[in-house]
């Protein structure tokens, strides 16, 4: 398969969709109205945005690094995706609101301070000097992994004012399991500002999170040269140790307290000087930043009538004795507590077609799981993002831009996680007597690799079917153990790898998928088979008959495959199992953490050949992967799942035309092609409201 230029072909697909909706040759406004008559568009009840989207939106809106959303209850879902809106509460409950109030209070506290702030994400520096960016263990934005022996790291910090600043660096070092105990801590770090050493830190080990290392330095107004200089301790490292011996760096944060009793405040990403106190002075200085925050948070223009009450709250808080920054926080809280922030849907215009702002909302929500950025909002303001829009504010151009932006990590962070049920790894346990090396770091490595597989296919615009059979893999020390590769990499340290035996192809032979479909003490060929039929072929088997005893073999006593054969001998069971088993049995060569094994606990050699209902022989994992990669239903199944994730509901008959267009009529389609085709479709652009 080869990469294709989907930006050209997407246009063709769009005309197909349009043609199928309306046969008039010339586009015209009445046709737009007709576009939204498409039966499939349907109505979705209003509901709140899912936890992930709320967290990412607050982070982006307020310029904060990490919002903890783990206590928000997960709303019940439709179609296996959390962004679908279904349960009648719209996902809102006491439990949710209680936590949401807490999150909003803490985020506002962090975002509005009487200090100036500059945050430099080291992982996004243009010149990394040999260091690598990696996806962090617990998910989230990339970090910098700084290998032993790497030279210093230089970058510029643009300070809004001169004087004494407080700086801190987020850092930790980590030793993989290959490293001998007598090897010294990897380094001290020096912080050099404008050529002068200002601090020397001894970095500690931390396996859970980065720690903060503080310093104080004079900065000049404008550009300052910052250098982080490692002093690597002399040590002899084997190659394996070198890979497991890294410094992880997060953000460099510079803050400067604004003068005591002064009236300069940092509001999210803006620094505001409120000048001398006086009637209306506070209102005058915060109206701009508050209006901009509200506009982005609510994804629509904000009228003075909507803004006034918020400004009044800020003023009355100040009047009741609150310091200025505390008063402003209450305004930020109000913006975040509004249903216009929490709920998903902006009402469309009267003809059912989403207007420019609603389109910006839809795209940022679907592609980034966040609020729109300034570019999208200015497109919306200038009336862009409509079918008639051309140039940089056309839907196509914006979708392409968005897919290359950092926010597009939603696709690998969230879509693939939900599509393949990798959330099962969250609190996965393994029997320590059978899997002594298995721990939380194992599942984190597994998920990182799964994300990386998807990320590269997305970024390089390769066909989505590469998910099934591409040989590219990324491993760290944990995965090297599981894949029986030569050890490399520390945690977070994914390096490219190809399986020389050619067995590990695509995401379905990844440790993440194999472990997510296993249990604490055994694999489940049935579970794996059902997962493939359901998520990869979109042909889920029916539920077991009511009185069917569950198939639970005891691997220590019997060969599970013999037991499965016996199970299939019963005609009631065979109806489903003749389709399920040949999908799961070839993967039995992989144990419950995804390692290759030769035999079962009872000593039997594992026979991974199986026969499909149509007589096709599947002779092990490679053969299964080949079968799926050439199966006509796999690409359209991925399109269905992607559609559900983007649209917030499962497809219906009337969506078949769009699904066909998303798969590019049989030619290989990429994620970019599929997503752009969707974004141009009536399904995305029309939101017909329920009839009163």
């Amino acid at each position: 398969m080869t990469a294709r230029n989907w930006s050209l072909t997407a246009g063709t697909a769009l005309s197909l969709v349009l043609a199928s909706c309306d046969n008039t040759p010339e586009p015209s406004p009445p046709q737009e109205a007709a576009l939204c008559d498409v039966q499939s568009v349907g109505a979705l009840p209003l509901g709140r945005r899912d936890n992930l989207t709320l967290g990412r939106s607050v982070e982006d809106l307020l310029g904060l690094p990490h919002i903890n959303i783990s206590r928000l209850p997960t709303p019940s879902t439709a179609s296996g995706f959390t962004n679908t809106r279904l349960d009648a509460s719209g996902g809102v409950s006491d439990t949710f609101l209680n936590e949401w109030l807490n999150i909003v209070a803490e985020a506002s506290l962090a975002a509005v301070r009487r200090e100036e702030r500059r945050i430099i994400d080291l992982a996004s520096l243009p010149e990394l000097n040999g260091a690598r960016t990696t996806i962090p263990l617990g998910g989230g934005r990339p970090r910098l992994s700084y290998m032993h022996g790497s030279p210093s790291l230089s970058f510029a910090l643009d300070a809004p004012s001169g004087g004494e600043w407080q700086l801190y660096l987020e850092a930790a070092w980590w030793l993989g399991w290959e490293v001998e105990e007598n090897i010294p801590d990897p380094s001290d770090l020096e912080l050099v500002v404008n050529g002068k050493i200002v601090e020397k830190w001894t970095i500690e080990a931390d396996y859970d999170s980065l720690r903060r290392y503080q310093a104080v330095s004079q900065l000049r107004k404008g550009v300052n040269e910052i250098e982080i200089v490692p002093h690597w301790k002399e040590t002899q490292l084997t190659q394996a140790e070198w890979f497991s011996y890294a410094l992880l760096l997060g953000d460099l944060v510079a803050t400067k307290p604004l003068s005591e009793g002064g009236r300069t405040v940092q509001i999210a990403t803006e620094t505001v000087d409120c000048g001398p106190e006086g009637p209306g002075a506070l209102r005058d200085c915060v109206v701009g930043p508050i209006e901009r925050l509200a506009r982005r948070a609510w994804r629509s223009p904000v009228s003075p009538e909507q803004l006034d009450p918020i400004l009044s709250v800020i003023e009355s808080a100040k009047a009741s004795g609150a310091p200025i920054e505390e008063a402003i926080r209450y305004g930020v809280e109000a913006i975040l507590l509004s249903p216009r922030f929490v709920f998903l849907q902006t009402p469309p215009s009267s003809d059912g077609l989403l207007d420019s702002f609603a389109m910006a909302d839809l795209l940022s929500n679907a592609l980034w799981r966040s609020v729109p950025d300034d570019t999208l909002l200015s497109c919306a303001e200038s009336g862009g993002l409509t079918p008639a829009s051309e140039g940089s504010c056309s839907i196509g151009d914006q979708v392409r831009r968005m897919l290359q932006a950092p926010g597009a990590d939603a696709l690998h962070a969230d879509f693939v996680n939900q599509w393949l049920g990798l959330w099962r790894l969250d609190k996965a346990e393994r029997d320590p007597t059978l899997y002594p090396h298995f721990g939380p770091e194992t599942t984190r490595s597994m998920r990182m690799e799964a994300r990386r597989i998807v990320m590269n296919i997305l970024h390089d615009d390769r066909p989505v079917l590469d998910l099934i059979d591409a040989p590219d893999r990324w491993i760290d020390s944990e995965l090297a153990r599981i894949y029986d590769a030569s050890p490399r990499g520390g945690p977070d340290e994914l390096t490219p790898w190809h399986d020389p035996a050619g067995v590990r192809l695509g995401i379905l032979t990844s440790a993440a998928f194999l472990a997510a479909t296993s249990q604490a003490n055994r694999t489940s060929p049935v579970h794996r088979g059902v997962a493939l039929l359901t998520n990869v072929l979109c042909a889920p088997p029916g539920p077991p008959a009511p009185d069917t005893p569950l198939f639970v073999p005891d691997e220590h006593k019997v060969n599970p495959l013999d037991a499965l054969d016996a199970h299939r001998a019963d005609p009631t069971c065979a109806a489903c199992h003749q389709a399920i088993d040949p999908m799961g049995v070839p993967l039995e060569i992989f144990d419950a953490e995804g390692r290759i094994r030769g035999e079962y606990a009872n000593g039997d050699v594992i026979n991974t050949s199986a026969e499909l209902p149509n007589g096709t022989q599947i002779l092990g994992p490679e053969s299964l992967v080949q079968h799926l990669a050439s199966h006509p239903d796999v690409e359209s199944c991925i399109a269905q799942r992607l559609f559900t994730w983007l649209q917030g509901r499962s497809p219906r008959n009337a969506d078949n035309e769009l699904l066909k267009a998303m798969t590019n009529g049989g030619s290989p389609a990429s994620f970019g092609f599929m997503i752009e085709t969707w974004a141009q479709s009536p399904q995305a652009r029309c939101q017909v409201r329920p009839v009163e």
Partner: protein
Amino acid sequence: MWTRRQLLGGAGAALAMPLIGRAAEATKPPLRFVAWFMPNGFYRTAYRPSTFGPISTLPSTLANLSPYKDRLTFVSGLRNAGADLAEDAHWGSLGAMLTGHALEVSATASVKNGQSFDQVLASAWRGLTRLNSLELSSEAPWPCSVVFQPDSDREGPLPFESLCAYKSYLSWDGPGRPRPAMIEPRAAFERLFGRVDHPGGDEARARRVMLGQSILDSVMQPLNKWTRNLSSHDRERVEQYTTMLREVEATLATPSTCGITPAQAPPTTTSIETHVQQMHALMNLALSCDETRIITYSIGRAGSERPYQHLGFSDSHHNLSHHADRPEHIQRLLMIERWCADQLSDFVRGLDETPDGRGGTLLDSTLILVCPELDDGNLHTNQDVTYLLIGNLGGRIRSGQHIPAPHSASHTLLLRALLRAYGVPQDDFGPTGTGVLTSVLS
């Protein structure tokens, strides 16, 4: 390990205080309700007494409840109506446990279910305690992953999509509005007794409380323009959101007066053993501090596949429940059930050791309804369930008995009887019929 006992040691005698307050002042003695959900059900012969009538010896799983034998009522023979809705009983049992509603999929894309038993009580007792009810669980619900062929033209959800909600929630506010449980003991503690640190300090906290409702007003009042284009159904959702937000804000503004300090919060844990114990300790605290009188708790989620590794084996609970009569599987299943029942017994003992300020103990005014997900996990059946009632509400319930119910009648007969016992009669509770299982009432 964080336990209520340890906490009592730290908090001194403060615990007796609140009961002398609100609860003791009321003219009628306060009553309390706890629903206790057991995933995958119980192995029958170790849980259901072998004969009807007065209870002689307790079945082995419940052995630790022996001291309270006279205050137990077993009710056998009823059918959980929710089990009718799906080929797989796991899908319907939890959602119908306290509502009696079988699944109904409407054409307007909403999940139908009735108000649950606990919320009927919560409505009747509204405002008596700081929290009207508390929903807890020791395991998060399944994220549903079900995929569909695009072969349907129907508007609204397909049956399985609604089933996801049924499989996830025990407590329901009203038609179609589930109340998700809190999963983190620490989060539940903070909800009851406040946060360890209020961001911004005490003065800021006081101002925040004072301004709370005007902060909400500032964004809720100008919503009219925004909601104009919404359907009446969607507008209703926005109204529900704003009403609930105001209520929760008000709860946060009124702190607990129980004398438990935020510093006593339970430490975060990854051990299921500790988690379950912390949740039971919190339930005791919530009741003894009279922060709420209604709790629903699930020791695991519906169809739980959790391994109980501290018992020395790692098989999934659900798998073991499909034991296919293999003795070694039954033995392990019974170990899990016994462990869970022992946690329940400890909770009951805790209630019985807590004075209620009226010369009795909390157990005198509390009813615990033990809710098994299935009557037979191996066969996935739900036609002949044994419900266990613990505590007789000061004699309102006929206890010390194993009571037969009309075979395969809906379990709403029992729930209606319990509503009568609580003095909140609602003989039309549930979707159909008006029968009441009066034989459980004294």
